[in-house]
């Protein structure tokens, strides 16, 4: 296939700093050399390659926007570009980085004690320790406020009981940030691999995010030392602030998957001859390609502007919801149209489109489903919450 040069119809590169461009290119080159040649095999085997963990740590991209404690301290735009390039490789790879940085490292960085930050963050940014984030439960997905996992204060320790589900990195994690109710109030706890009463069996049988580890977290009278609670936050604000950062990264990441599908569709349509001419020469195909470029470009401008607002602190939650919802939605549709342009070849692992399509079905659902983000924006517009029947 023709070498990948990115998609930048509106010259967004001219808005990036030299450092942001260098970081994007570093991750792009790594994905070309170390991910794309191996991703289909990893999906077939259902594994996340450990060498990717090592490389992400060596590149220094984990916990990208966090400052101090050995973390990179990059701009949110740089973080977005990292997510974009990783997800051009595979959503599973970007999920690993999102969970590590935004869902596991971020709450320790923002709500943890100095001792917790010094103990966990340097080893997590280097990739030595893998993190995961336990919020969703088997019966509480879009409605985490009603979670049943609970913590009890036993005097010299906490006792955790309950179960979490759909946890990226769970089985391979060294550190889990787990949200549980203590006296009816949601609090964050740091659980470590090997803690008594803690297990993390892997969930098998996924048709999506196959190169990513997804697990249950099970707590049966799990003993947690007192110094492992995050003191800095109470209630849903804790997990939601983590999700905001991860959703921001997804709004960029989804564009990477869309760019991969667009690139493949463009290249394929220029080389596939039907009725004596490349299918790219037919108006119906051009219409599809033009629509893909249009949606990617709009998504890029959305993500870029949101990134700069994250950097100067002028953003609000609903803006992140809109970007996550829109960019994943268009990416999934672009993957479907790209599969269509590839004809029967589109279902083969020779092309990336069906893999991205299947991945994006998960991405549309996790970190706030498409519908929940619509409700968040609906509440912003009307002032009326429509999550429950109680107005």
């Amino acid at each position: 296939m023709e070498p990948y040069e990115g998609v930048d119809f509106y010259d967004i590169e001219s808005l990036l700093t030299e450092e942001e461009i260098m970081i994007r290119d570093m991750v792009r080159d790594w994905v070309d050399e170390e991910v794309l040649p191996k991703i289909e095999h990893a999906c077939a085997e259902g594994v996340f390659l450990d060498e990717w963990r090592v490389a992400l740590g060596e590149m220094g991209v984990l916990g990208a926007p966090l400052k101090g404690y050995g973390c990179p301290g990059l701009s949110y735009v740089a973080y977005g570009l990292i997510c974009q390039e990783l997800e051009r490789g595979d959503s599973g790879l970007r999920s690993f980085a999102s969970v590590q940085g935004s869902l596991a490292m971020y709450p320790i960085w923002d709500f943890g004690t100095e001792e917790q930050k010094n103990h966990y963050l340097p080893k997590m940014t280097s990739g030595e320790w893998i993190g995961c984030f336990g919020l969703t439960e088997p019966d509480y997905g879009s409605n985490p406020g009603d979670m049943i996992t609970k913590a009890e204060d036993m005097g010299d320790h906490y006792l955790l009981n309950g179960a979490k589900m759909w946890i990226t990195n769970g089985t391979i994690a060294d550190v889990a940030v787990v949200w549980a109710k203590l006296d009816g109030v949601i609090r964050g706890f740091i659980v470590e691999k090997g803690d008594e009463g803690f297990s993390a069996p892997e969930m098998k049988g996924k048709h999506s995010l196959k190169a990513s580890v997804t697990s249950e977290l099970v707590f049966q009278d799990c003993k947690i030392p007192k110094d492992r609670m995050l003191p800095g936050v109470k209630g849903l604000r804790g997990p939601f602030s983590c999700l905001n950062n991860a959703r921001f990264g997804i709004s960029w990441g989804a564009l990477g998957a869309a760019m991969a599908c667009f690139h493949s569709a463009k290249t394929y349509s220029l080389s596939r001859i039907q009725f004596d001419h490349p299918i790219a020469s037919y108006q119906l195909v051009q219409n599809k390609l033009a629509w893909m470029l249009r949606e990617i470009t709009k998504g890029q401008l959305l993500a870029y502007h949101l990134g700069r607002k994250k950097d100067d602190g002028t953003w609000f939650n609903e803006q992140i919801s809109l970007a996550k919802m829109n960019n994943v939605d268009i990416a999934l549709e672009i993957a479907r149209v790209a599969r269509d342009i590839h004809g029967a070849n589109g279902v083969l692992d020779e092309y990336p489109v069906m893999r991205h399509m299947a991945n994006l079905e998960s991405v549309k659902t996790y970190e706030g489903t498409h519908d929940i983000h619509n409700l968040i924006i609906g509440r912003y517009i009307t002032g009326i919450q429509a999550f429950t029947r109680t107005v």
Partner: protein
Amino acid sequence: MSNIVVLVKQVPDTNAKIVVSGDRVDLSAVKKVMSPYDEFAVETALKHREANGGEVTALTLGGAGADKVLKDAKAIGVDHIVRIDTEDEHDSNALQSALATVLTEIGAEVVYCGKSAADTGAGSTGPGIAERLGWASVSNVISVAFESGLTVIAPSEGGNARISVPLPAVISCDKGDMKVRKPNVKGIMQAKKAKVEVKTVAMQGSTVSVVAHSMPPAKPAGKSYEGGAAAAEVARLLRDEANVI
């Protein structure tokens, strides 16, 4: 402790589509990258520093736009970055003289460069500089050992030659089997802060000048054959004309 210099050149991305506008190549819209063989030179220079100590300076020649290639080298790990400032086109003689002048000025003891640049493919810079400085020179080196002085391996007739090289020397590097190191975020942050030392050299006049650029002629249309009866003819053409069997 060695004063190590690596020469790096910014060239059009080897995947870029080249356009000739009028009688000149138009590179305005083309992405620029470090010439691929220079990446092996940078890697070898860094290995030299790791083995023997010292500092590595990356040196290039060009306008301010060429600073990018120096920043790329800095992000990979060189200590200093220096650019000889010139916007004009120069021939190999002028370039080699300018580079030799600055190498003397900064006290270089060993110089690494790519075996040839991806744009011109001339391969004259390394040997040309060594000639001007009166230094030892070995080209197309695929491996370097630093244990007892400098020993390099370069292809020779029928195999490889192991060559002991006295310093000062200019070594031009081929791919070999080395894996080049890549930048990381820490390196990129250091590159962002790093200042390019800009040097001005009186450039000597070029002995030759480019009159015009042109695209290579289009490939002739392929021939197609049908049916088993053509097999013998196809085999003959593959053997006698294409020289592939």
